[in-house]
């Protein structure tokens, strides 16, 4: 028997992930070692420093094109770009998670397991500092996401999926207000997430059966020269895709999204809407472009149908929503559909425009949830639409910023929403998927209605008795808002630099 040989490891290429996982473990130790009073500041600084350090590592690796640890991890243009995007958006999300001045104790509860409605629950709701475990959990999730977009074999991808999903399930349960809704959301997310993971894993088994290997390159070879029944390939491809479509919130695997977005603490919702989306689409891009490119003619119509269904469900259901977080959830579902249009272009333009879209959308959605976290009444965030009537009279600045973000979602020119939609639609036309673009444009028109309805509600309705006060944002939330708006404008007016960057990055290694 041969002695077990370690495969060569390129530590430089793995450094960003190693930094994050290391920092997360350190964060767990901080929970034990640092006194409660100082913990929040220490944890937040640690998390942000780790993210910045990882980002620096990503930037230093910018020219790397390699496959390492025995083919488990591929570090190439898309990996590094998406890792950078996840780190930037994650860092901004951490600032939202770290906000403590809008609500006493922050958006998180200190002990999630306490029975809802009990004496202790009342106590902790009214001002006990929130759990600081959210920081290591977030950093673990970020690390998992970095691995997810870099995974070059299906099992690594599965592990990464679980690594970033489990912390998210926990984070969802930690909302300070509406505890039951939060717990319910977490449980639903966990159950359905596990269900989807099972599909993914089962699919991996089928693919292994077909290709005799789980590395994406091997699958690609096998697809080109099939040795076994293609039934295995198609069943496997379908099931792997389902696992990824679930995370990306594409119909009909989107059902968890509205409930979870509504129930989770708003900073976590923002984190999911921005970062999970990047990670899920990053992995989807890699699987489809690297492993299954050879059967593109077979999966394009099926996934195209899913994209159309997603766009329609997102747009149509957004019309009748009365809760802003749910409205944004359906908007995020519709946006997943638009991203899918870019993915299905299956050319370099498709890859680069999808990556551009992910960044642009991430910043806008972070700003949107940041605003939602500011409009509060005595029960916490006032997310019901009726509460937002006439808010433009009370806080014109906030309403103006939200109007701008909504216009960006609606794809009005001079915002990133326009340039990014234009980019993915352009790529899809070039890739011969004009039919998807037609549906995309139709649903964009539908989707403009709910956005504009909110705008009309904010500016043209009389403020009622119940119109809530708008909290003065703390430094962290202000920074998030400013960043979100600046990036949304900048990518709308001068998108060229980022588009160049995505084009340079748009090549996978196989």
């Amino acid at each position, binding site marked *: 028997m041969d002695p077990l040989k370690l495969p060569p490891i390129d530590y430089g290429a793995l450094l960003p992930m190693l930094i994050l996982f290391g920092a997360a473990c350190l964060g767990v130790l901080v929970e034990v070692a640092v006194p409660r009073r100082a913990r929040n500041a220490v944890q937040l600084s640690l998390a942000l420093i780790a993210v910045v350090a990882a980002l620096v590592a990503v930037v230093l690796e910018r020219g790397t094109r390699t496959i390492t640890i025995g083919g488990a991890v591929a570090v190439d243009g898309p990996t590094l770009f998406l890792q950078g995007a996840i780190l930037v958006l994650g860092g901004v999300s951490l600032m939202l998670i770290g906000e403590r001045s809008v609500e006493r104790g922050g958006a998180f509860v200190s002990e999630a397991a306490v029975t809802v409605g009990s004496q202790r629950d009342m106590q902790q709701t009214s001002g006990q500092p929130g759990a600081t475990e959210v920081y290591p959990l977030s950093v673990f999730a970020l690390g998992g996401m970095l691995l997810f977009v870099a995974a070059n074999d299906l099992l690594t991808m599965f592990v990464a999926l679980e690594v970033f999903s489990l912390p998210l399930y926990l984070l969802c349960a930690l909302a300070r207000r509406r505890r039951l809704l939060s717990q319910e959301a977490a*449980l*639903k997310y966990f*159950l*359905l997430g596990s*269900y*989807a993971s099972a*599909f993914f894993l089962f699919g991996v088994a089928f693919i292994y059966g077909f290709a005799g290997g789980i590395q994406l390159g091997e699958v690609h070879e096998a697809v080109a020269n099939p040795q076994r029944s*293609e*039934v295995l*390939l*198609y*069943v496997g*491809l*379908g*099931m792997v*895709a*389902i696992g990824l479509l*679930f995370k990306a919130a594409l*119909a*009909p*695997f989107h*059902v*968890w999204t*509205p*409930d979870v977005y509504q129930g989770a603490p708003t900073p976590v919702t923002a984190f999911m809407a921005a970062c999970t989306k990047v990670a899920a689409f990053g992995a989807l891009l890699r699987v489809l472009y690297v492993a299954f490119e050879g059967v593109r003619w*077979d*999966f394009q*119509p*099926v996934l195209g*149908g*899913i994209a159309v269904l997603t766009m329609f*469900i997102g747009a*149509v*259901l*957004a*019309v*009748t929503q009365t809760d802003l977080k749910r409205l944004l959830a359906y908007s995020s579902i519709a946006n997943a559909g638009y991203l899918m249009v870019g993915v299905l272009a299956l050319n370099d333009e498709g890859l680069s425009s999808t990556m551009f879209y992910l960044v642009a959308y991430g910043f806008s959605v972070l700003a949107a949830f940041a605003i939602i976290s500011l409009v509060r009444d005595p029960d916490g965030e006032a997310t019901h639409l009726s509460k937002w009537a006439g808010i433009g009279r009370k806080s014109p600045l906030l309403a103006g910023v939200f109007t701008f973000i909504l216009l960006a979602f609606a794809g009005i020119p001079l915002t990133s929403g326009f340039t990014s939609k234009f980019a993915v639609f352009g790529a899809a036309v070039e890739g011969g998927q004009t039919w998807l673009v037609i549906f995309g444009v139709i649903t964009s028109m*539908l989707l403009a*209605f709910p956005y504009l309805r909110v705008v009309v509600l904010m500016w043209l309705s009389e403020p009622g008795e119940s119109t809530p006060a708008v909290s003065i944002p703390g430094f962290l939330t202000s920074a998030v808002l400013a960043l979100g708006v600046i990036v949304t404008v900048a990518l709308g007016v001068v998108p060229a630099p980022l588009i160049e960057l995505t084009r340079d990055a748009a090549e996978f290694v196989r």
Partner: protein
Amino acid sequence: MEHTFAPATGVLSNIWLLVAVPLASATILLLLGKRSDRWGHWLGVASVAASFVLGLIFFVNLSGLDPARRSAELSLWDFIVVGDLKVDFGLLFDPLAGVFVLLITGVGSLIHLYAVGYMEHDPGRRKFFAYFNLFVSAMLLLVLGNNYVMLYFGWEGVGLASYLLISFWYTRPSAATAGKKAFLMNRVGDAGLAIGIFLMFTELGSTQYDDVFNGVDSMAAGTILVMGILLLLGACGKSGQFPLQAWLPDAMEGPTPVSALIHAATMVTAGVYLIARSNPIFSANTTLQLVVVSIGAITLLMGCLIGAAKDDIKRILAWSTVSQIGYMFLGVGLGGGAYALAIIHLLAHGFFKANMFLGAGSVMHGMHDQVDIRRFGGLSKHMKITWLTFGTGWLAIIGIPPLSGYFSKEPIIAAAFEREVVWEAWVFGGAALLGAGLTAFYMTRLFVLTFHGPARWTEDNQHPHESPAIMTIPLILLAAGSIGAGYLMSTSVPDWLNPVFGTAAAEGEAHGVLSHAVITILSLLVTVIGAGLAWALFRKGTALEPEPAGVLVTAARRNLYTDAFNEAVFERPGIYLTRALVFLDNKGIDGLVNGIAAGIGGGSGRLRRLQTGFVRSYALSMLTGAMLVVGAFLAIQLGWLA
């Protein structure tokens, strides 16, 4: 002929000041607002006077140049650069632009001065002067541009200024309506001009005057005809020519100085300028020239007929403007040496018509804004200066030698008789001759009813008085112009304009159907008959109310039914079309849109119920989705769908 313009050098490189000075004044007056109320009108006068002085200096400089290169082209900056289209922000000061600059700023200065007195009691006097300066600036840009886009820029600028000035008393519904009418009818013409410019760009790739004129030879005859007709449509709109004449008389709702400056001396001549400037295009196609001549002849007769039936002093003058511009169109349509004749008539008309409009303003000033000539009479005793100056204008317009109208109009009549095709010579020459007689008739009627005969004043209006010096001095200066300018111009202007129109003015030896001497005698004869007839009829005054009249007079009173025609053919169907579209929009399109919206809303409401909140049903829907996805892949694999 090769068209090139010499670059501006020396003093002439400052021609941009002509446009900039009044524009700066307008900007200051509008921005300072009430703070400049006390001195604003003087700034307005000074800026136009300064432009006049500058214009004179440039004019003298220009005349010092060699006639073959007597022009100054100045490119300020690239105005529009899109793809192949490149438009200069450039100016051109050549003999044609030169005479227009002098007319606009010279007559303009006098009218500005007059307006200081006329608008004295109006609270909006500063704003009025701001608009007035804006107008002068735009008009100068129009005549100074070195390409058609600059011309269009100025063209729209004067359109805007004239809208603001016609509706200056916007609280009066009639003034607001008149402003709107002028604006809308001008849009029709402007659209023609704009399309004409587009056509130039597609055909020749440039809108610079020299490129366009040099490219005329390379265009097909049909293209030239279309381009010319489009330019002509623009010219008709701005100059109040048939069929777009209806706005001009209504525009008299504005303050009288506006009528004098815009609707007599300057803006309405922009159409004549456009055709004269585009002479290489118009001269290149005889059909096009025939169209221009016909429009001129129709309009001049129409203006005379309607003018003879009106009782409102300003409207009579307005219709006479329409008619006189008809003569100018006749002139530019005849082509060759007649271009210069038309410009001479334009300049002479600028003086005597401004003179008479301001005279009318002076009469109204003394008669409590009464405008009905049936309620004047015997004013010669009370307003000596107005009477005398108006008298010179009257004699000038009807063409009594040696006043200016004789030297400017009679040659056009003669030129019309020189058409090569015999029937054309008779038709157009005859029309021009008939027009001369009619002009003598209605202008004499106006003059006699206003200044002579028994007083027929209304009871509350018994104390007519002469206007202050600030109003009469411009009248005297303009009257001097009406007397002397004709002879001076008829001897010098044709040579001066030779570099622009290329051909020397035709000498008297032309081969018309009638000899020149016969035409001179005939035109003087019809003038005397017309004037004498009117004097005899109206010497004793007239009825105070309209009397029943024959078909022709009734028709003329109603503007020859042109308004009725416009209403029946354009307005009514337009209104019906609007209503039909509104109906279609409400019932059809809105119905469809609302239906779709309701459908989506309903669908959304139904779909929402699928979102039950139960994990079991979510899982079920995922399972169904999974089965469908995998099933679809297998179906493709097994060839069911492929």
